[in-house]
């Protein structure tokens, strides 16, 4: 086999690294890597190659040799003619695609964890501070398992009469209305949802819905209804019990449980 020229090896390293980052790391191993990050890595690789080929004069000449040959050597006439057509054609197509690219709508940034108000309310009635309010039926879990079960079952009923259209039979945010909503309904089976919040936070999000979200961090396009208009305070607490019972996730608590 003919020995590869230094130029070809550098070319292979460059293309190989790009394929590796774009498709292997960003496809098979992990999620796609942003173009800016890929550009940064590729920049580093180019610098490394440049350093490598310019260490010695002979090395540098060896690197330039194929380029020289292609430009002037008669044996490379065919290569030359192909390149003198291909390079301008590529640039023609590339600049056209950049200029003719149509504008796309701006993305809609959203804050996954909106900050709740300090005071928790139901309609206009104050319940307490967000930090301190606990689910009034949570203590039955230890004190009176039968009563606890009744509350969970009531929560199950409330959920399936109101919530499952969007949040799904399996609480996975994939109800039959869900595919057409933006942002998508919350997925309670996601381990990052329930364990990260206190029950009071859930009460707030359920009671006040999309319109109750804070002005900071807009735009809020959430289709979540204002459930205090439809559900009693107890029903909301019950449905919160059901969410953790069904998924098996524990809500976050601070300090000692009451």
């Amino acid at each position: 086999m003919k020995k590869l020229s230094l130029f070809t090896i550098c070319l292979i390293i460059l293309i190989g690294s790009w394929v590796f980052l774009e498709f292997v790391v960003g496809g098979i191993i992990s999620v796609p890597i942003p173009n800016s990050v890929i550009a940064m890595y590729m920049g580093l690789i180019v610098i490394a190659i440049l350093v490598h080929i310019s260490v010695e004069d002979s090395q540098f000449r060896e690197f330039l040799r194929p380029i020289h040959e292609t430009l002037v050597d008669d044996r490379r006439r065919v290569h030359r003619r192909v390149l003198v057509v291909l390079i301008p054609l590529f640039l023609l197509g590339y600049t056209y695609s950049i200029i003719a690219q149509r504008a796309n709508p701006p993305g809609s940034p959203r804050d996954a964890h909106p900050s709740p108000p300090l005071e928790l309310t139901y309609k206009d009635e104050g319940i307490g501070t967000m930090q301190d309010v606990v689910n009034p039926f949570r203590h039955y879990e230890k004190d009176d398992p039968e009563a606890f079960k009744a509350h969970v079952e009531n929560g199950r009923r409330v959920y399936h009469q109101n919530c499952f259209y969007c949040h799904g039979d399996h609480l996975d945010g994939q109800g039959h209305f869900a595919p057409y909503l933006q942002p998508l309904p919350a997925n309670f089976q996601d381990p990052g949802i329930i364990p990260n919040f206190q029950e009071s936070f859930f009460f707030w999000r359920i009671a006040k819905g999309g319109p109750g979200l804070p002005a900071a961090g807009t735009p809020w396009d959430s289709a979540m209804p204002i459930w205090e208009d439809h559900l009693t305070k107890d029903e909301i607490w019950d449905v919160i019990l059901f969410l953790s019972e069904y998924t098996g996730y524990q809500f976050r608590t601070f300090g000692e449980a009451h």
Partner: protein
Amino acid sequence: MRIRTIALLLTVFGMLVVFNSAYAQNAPEASEKGKEVYENSCAHCHGVEGRGDGSAAENLLPKPRDFTRGLYKIRSTEAGQLPTDQDLFDIITEGMPGSSMPGWETALTANDRWEVVAYIKTFYDGFKENENPPKQITLEGKIPYSEQSVEIGKELYVELGCVECHGNVGRGDGTSAPTLTDSWGFQTWPANLTQGWNYRGGFDTEDIFKRFIGGIAGSPMPAFEGDSFLNFGLTAEESKRLIELENKDEMTEAEEEESGQFYEKMDTAVDIALSIKEGAEMSTTQMQTYNDAMKVVYEKSWHLANYVKSLMPEERPEPAIGNNVLRSQYVQGELPAFDDAAWETFEARYFPLVGQVVIEPRQFNPTIDGVHVKSFYNDTEVVFLFVWDDRTHTTGDETDETTQKPLEDALAVQFPVKVPQGPTAPKPYFLWGGRLPVYLWHWKASTPDQVTELTAKGINNAETQEAQGELQVQSAYTDGQYKLWVKRTLKTDDKKDLQLEPGVFVPIAFSVWDGSNADVDTKLTMTSWYTFTLEPVPSSRRFVYPPIIAILSVGLLFGLRAFVQRRNTEDV
């Protein structure tokens, strides 16, 4: 060595296939595990006792299945038969599109799903009593899809009476569509055959074929079997001839005799079919007559299935999200009129609808799937074409029982009054605005040539604008489909109107009312915010810069060559 390895692999593979198919055929014995999974995942709709009366059932239509009567819609088995275990397993796995039954493939393990199949069967004694496995529909003799077959199917669609429920072109808008009820007395709508993605049991030609032969148990859709199939016992040609004779005002004596013979033939075949259904023993000749007759039914069903398949797009239209936004196309001069052929050149954007469940009265069971939208604009005006399927043309002749308001079909297109500037600027509340107002075009079926402009700060806080008449409107209802054409100038003098200019991304949303689904006031079907833009005319720079760059690059290459050549000579 290599041959032995291959043989070994083949054996293992073969065993896996055999094991899998054997495993797939039958559910295990009903167990406590099945009960537990059922009660945790299914009972809220289907009820603890399988009566289809769980807590969610009240607000659902189609209703969750009542398992106590052994009526299953989606089966691979012949008319009147129970489903196979595999049928039940598949429905649980894949769910039923167009209804609230989700697929459980990711939520339940295969084992759990089999346990549920076994448990569901305990709700109906028929599964225990039937010792013979249900008879499956044979798919042999499939007639491949071809234009010719579609043509035959199209004729059969009329001949067999499909039109009466499913309508002229299959949008579920037949004359008897609004009167249908299922075996439990609940209202049910015939399928819109042009929306394959909503077929409960899939929309492959084979799926459609199975629904014909097996019927959709519990629904008004009949199975194609001996005692109900049109002209059962006649060949396709004989059947055509008989229809021709029956349509004559007066028959000659010879014709009377001919048709008499046909009726005799049919009577014989139907009698045999009925006897077979009752389980009677048949002679070989009788079986031959029956099999010949069923062969005709099967053939016709394949043609009809091919026709139905031809009615739907390959896939559900992509919702207009992400970069797939509605882009109004620029045209020079006059904008296309209502029935201009230019509309055909625009690929519509699709806006799927969901029920409005935020404000009472709410709509949990929408009947309108979505709105297709096209748009063109020129230097001064913009025109839209809104197209949506609705099975009935309701124009306010009937009133709603609770509100006493007239029931009618309607559509509202919603824009913000002011376009939010930048991605973090708030949009008005998607449901007819709130703190920030929205601007609406409200069209009603009772006044089809008129669109009212509204300003709203909430769905119960809308007012009709004083300045009207800025919109030109035309509409039509044909074969279960509304078409609404609206034209407006880009700029108006009214400060409450949205002002339009090219290149700006404008939020757009829709509200649709189906009068026959008791949609009135806030009981409606809607979308949240989508995006629309007047697509700017592409810059002519795209024809200038690229050639310049290409020419420069050629020059650069030659320059480089000259440079290297000169240096080479100097070196020498």
